[in-house]
């Protein structure tokens, strides 16, 4: 079994890995479509199945201007159209011809996390995953409070929704430098207090998946996520995210999936 060797250059020597994946040599269709979009993402057309060994830039599940005025279209055009796209493109370049090509994104992430001794593709792989997750964490007309099982679980583990909200906002505000704040579900309740839901904050590209948790909700606190709309005012951005953007439906669905796996 080939072991991935850590290199400092972006080109990974093919000799370091076992075999080449047979790959579709043609351009990835969804990337080509997404290149010239302004008002809308370019949705993937259904058509002949194309076997591709590359990762796609997935569009968020709403139009680019749908989160206005809380998260501007201007921000979305850069955040999704430039930052997220670059992570996808650079990841594909990094893994082509290596044993990572053809593996799932989660697989690539966990392998390159390498128990904390990060390998070069980790940053791109994890950031692709994190941003996919981030767009899903929001919706037009979002915010408000969760309901049903999710609300019960939050009240059980945090005391109240307000206390959870306070802890989540604080984590997002105090993650120094670049990073993310998360609500996660842990399959093994925390021994000290039996909690299944936890708030975490992570630096740069690190996410709960590589730490062994199930992610339910995230907020991006890299400066590029909020600087155009809020400049240095990260706390304002966090407040608006909680009040106007969070998709509790998405969070509930993720909790349900997580619990059904355990049952």
């Amino acid at each position, binding site marked *: 079994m080939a072991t991935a060797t850590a290199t400092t250059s972006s080109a990974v020597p093919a000799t370091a890995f076992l075999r080449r994946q047979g790959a579709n040599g043609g351009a990835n269709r969804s990337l080509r479509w997404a290149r010239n979009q302004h008002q809308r993402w370019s949705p993937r057309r259904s058509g002949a199945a194309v076997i591709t060994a590359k990762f796609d830039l997935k569009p968020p599940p709403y139009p680019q201007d749908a989160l206005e005025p809380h998260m501007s279209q201007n921000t979305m055009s850069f955040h999704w159209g430039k930052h997220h796209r670059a992570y996808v493109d650079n990841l594909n370049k990094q893994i082509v011809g290596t044993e990572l090509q053809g593996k799932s994104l989660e697989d690539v992430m966990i392998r390159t996390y390498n128990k904390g001794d990060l390998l070069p593709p980790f940053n791109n792989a994890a950031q692709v995953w994190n941003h996919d997750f981030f767009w899903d964490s929001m919706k037009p007309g979002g915010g408000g409070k969760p309901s049903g099982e999710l609300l019960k679980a939050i009240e059980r583990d945090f005391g109240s929704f307000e206390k959870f909200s306070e802890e989540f906002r604080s984590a997002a505000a105090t993650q120094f430098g*670049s990073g993310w704040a998360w609500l996660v579900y842990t399959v093994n309740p925390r021994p000290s207090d039996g909690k299944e839901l936890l708030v975490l904050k992570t630096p*740069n590209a690190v996410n709960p998946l590589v730490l062994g948790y199930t992610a339910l909700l995230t907020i991006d606190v890299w400066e590029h996520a909020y600087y155009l709309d809020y400049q240095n005012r990260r706390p304002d951005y966090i407040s608006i995210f909680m009040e106007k953007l969070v998709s509790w439906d998405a969070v509930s669905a993720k909790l349900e999936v997580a619990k059904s796996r355990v049952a």
Partner: protein
Amino acid sequence: MALRTIVSRKTLAALGSGLRAEARLAASRGLVTFSLPDLPYDYGALEPAISAEIMQLHHQKHHQTYVTNYNKALEQLEDAMAKGDALAVVKLQSAIKFNGGGHINHSIFWKNLSPIREGGGEPPKGSLGWAIDTDLGSMEALVQRMNAEGAALQGSGWVWLGLDKDFKKLVVETTANQDPLVTKGANLVPLIGIDVWEHAYYLQYKNVKPDYLKNIWKVINWKYASEVYEKECH
């Protein structure tokens, strides 16, 4: 332009006097606190390399916040030390590194920059220019290396031209977040630091960090770097 100068100076003076009052109070208890240093040029003086909007936010908001939070952390530290609370002292270390580092790094950064009409961008003459050629190949090689390392830095941090004062050699280094250069080596003296946190360039250059790095060299203050170098290498 002149009006903006007056307004900005007044604001700075107000900030300064407010902080000086705090400093006096704290000093009476023996604690030295810090204040936001004035910029040696107007916010718009580095255009078009760095916009006035960025300079103002960067100085008045970001750097000021580091100063404010550093002072807060130092007060809490003094308290914890007086109480002999070892755990509290240790827990405060990250806040001190973040905010103290932020204050230190940005104080250097403002001196690393200078308007073109005041010599910004002019390559160093004298011993530093010579050392760059000897230790790093050439000015072009230095710029290319710092730009490459700055572009490759993931997350937030700084890229530095430093002097190893033990070996009297120039080095290029990066640090994460607000870690000062000494965290990479106790004998390293910062000559030029380039802030590659997104707040340093985003409003103007957006995601195109390489363009920011290409343009900042037009306003790099080599006079200051030379002074620091010559002081260490006399």
